[in-house]
């Protein structure tokens, strides 16, 4: 019939204008809360995973990590190897690391930790440990008797691994490094705290200091850490290393992540399950609220049918209403999330053993969740409206 298409818009506008504002506000607020909950769960896990990845890259493995070829103990001729690697397109910097089979002794406490000999200048270009000094300073190129240790080695009353640490070693104090039958005293020049547990259980000396102890290890490394110009170029760099026939095993940070990789995989699974549950809870909650809202309008629907308004127009009216509820709820939810929740957790990040995690949300995640809320809301409007427009008019009017 001519003009009947405007009926849903007309009725919806009037219901919103003259209907109960509290009910309208509560429904939109509920949609917003359901939406925030959906994004929060995903963004929390995204933040943890992203932070874990960044910590691995920035403090531990770089983007690509080279280890000696099978059967070899060392990567040789690092003085030739590093410039060769740095010339590969996409590579920003490379640094050789020598894992020292040594023990450290502080007062009466002795222990084995990963002690790495590095070129401080090159290392600064591939990892950010130099920026994470909790006390003291980072190594200088010519430090021959200085060592920097991670917070988990230095220890202290509020340190997580204090039981297995020096239990409070300070900058300026001495430690003895025992290596290959040689003992040498080093002064703690700095204590770093990356908040990534594996890195904070490491200690660094300069390559020059190691060469002074063991000249035969000059220009040798147990690993080369490569920093890419940006994340995502790892595969290209590995391919280029293969083409240039550079000796060694090439691992991307994901390959080298080891335990963190399985943790990340678990987080992805947990994220999926929790997001699914959150969608389900949001769906059920929204469905119940909209169902009750529309069911309370049975009499109205009955009247509309009695005066000859076609059932599909009545259904369209309630679908349009729920569409407006859900779009408004999503808009409010986005405002709450980006205006309040995300900035709050940026200022007060979650403190985890892998580092401080903030909420991180991707456009695709948001779009999927917006769609989920809108589809659920529209179905929640359509189903009861469909049911009520199918029952007898008089039953609808009398609320049976």
């Amino acid at each position, binding site marked *: *019939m001519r003009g009947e298409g405007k009926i849903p818009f007309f009725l919806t506008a009037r219901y919103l204008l003259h209907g109960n504002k509290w009910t309208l506000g509560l429904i939109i607020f509920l949609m917003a809360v359901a939406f925030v909950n959906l994004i929060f769960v995903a963004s929390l896990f995204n933040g943890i995973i992203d932070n874990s990845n960044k910590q691995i890259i920035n403090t531990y493995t770089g983007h690509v990590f080279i280890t000696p070829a099978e059967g070899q103990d060392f990567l040789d001729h690092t003085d030739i190897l590093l410039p060769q690697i740095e010339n590969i397109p996409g590579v920003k910097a490379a640094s050789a690391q020598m894992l020292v089979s040594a023990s450290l002794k502080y007062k009466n406490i002795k222990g084995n930790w990963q002690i790495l000999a590095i070129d401080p200048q090159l290392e600064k270009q591939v990892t950010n440990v130099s920026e994470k000094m909790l006390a003291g300073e980072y190594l200088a190129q010519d430090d021959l008797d200085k060592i920097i240790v991670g917070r988990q080695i230095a220890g202290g009353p509020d340190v997580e691994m204090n039981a297995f640490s020096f239990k409070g070693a300070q900058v300026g104090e001495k430690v003895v490094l025992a290596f290959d039958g040689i003992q040498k005293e080093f002064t703690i020049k700095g204590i770093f705290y990356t908040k990534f547990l594996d890195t904070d259980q490491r200690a660094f000396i300069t390559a020059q200091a190691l060469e002074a102890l063991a000249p035969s290890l000059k220009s040798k490394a147990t690993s080369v850490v490569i920093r890419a110009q940006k994340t995502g170029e790892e595969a290209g760099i590995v391919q280029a290393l293969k083409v240039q026939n550079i000796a060694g095993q090439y691992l991307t940070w994901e390959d080298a992540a080891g335990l963190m990789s399985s943790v990340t995989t678990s987080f992805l699974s947990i994220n999926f399950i929790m997001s699914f549950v959150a969608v389900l809870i949001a769906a059920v909650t929204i469905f119940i609220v909209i169902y009750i809202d529309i069911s309370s309008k049975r009499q109205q629907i009955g009247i509309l049918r009695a005066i*000859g308004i076609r*059932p599909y127009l009545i259904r369209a009216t309630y679908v349009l209403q729920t569409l407006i509820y859900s779009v408004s709820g999503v808009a409010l939810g986005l405002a709450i999330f980006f205006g309040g929740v995300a900035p709050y957790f940026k200022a007060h990040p979650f403190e985890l053993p892998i580092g401080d995690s903030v909420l991180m949300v991707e456009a695709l995640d948001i779009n999927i969740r917006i769609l989920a809320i809108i589809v659920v809301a529209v179905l929640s409007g359509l189903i009861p409206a469909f049911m009520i427009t199918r029952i007898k008019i008089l039953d609808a009017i009398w609320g049976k």
Partner: protein
Amino acid sequence: MSAANRLIEVKNICKNYALGEIQVPALREVSLVINPGDFLVITGRNGSGKSTLLRQLGLLDKPDTGEIFLANQPTTKMNELERSRLRLLKLGYIFQEYALIAELSALENVMLPAMMLEKTKICQKRALETLAKVGLEKKARNLPRQLSGGEQQKVAIARALINDPMILFADEPTANLDSVAAKDILNIFKKLNSEKHTVVMITHEPEETKYANRLVKLADGKIV
């Protein structure tokens, strides 16, 4: 009146209601003819079946058996869409409890059925004219909650009239009104009938039967 001119012809309709497992007869073999210009009043005690009969006539419900012809068209086999179209174009129904949409103003309540057929501006103009017929043009912008019972019933009458139906059904339209408002409403029906509108009204107030030019009395679901 020849058969071709009959507005409504009811043939042997029966309607039962289920009360648990028991079927309670509300209408038993009712037959009736309504002609153009009638002011037919249906009376009877509570439970006599008068409201049930009116709902069948207004196509709000279907009889279990029998047939209702509207302008010689059988209606019981029609689907909901066809019945909906007839309610919109041919019938006007006035409920005892007014049945207005709370979120729409008096004007909007009245213009709503017309909006199915015409542009909004035309509907507004017609709705205002119809409200004027029942003396309520000054309260066109008021919401139902801002109107008295009598005024709400006038809005309901205007809504029933907006698409110029061939017959008006009124289900105890004065039951919830005081005597002054009730008289006012009945006078509107009388006036509408004098303007050639066919009116079918239910009442159980004996004094209201004087407005009728035809009277039907129901008892135990049968015309007596």
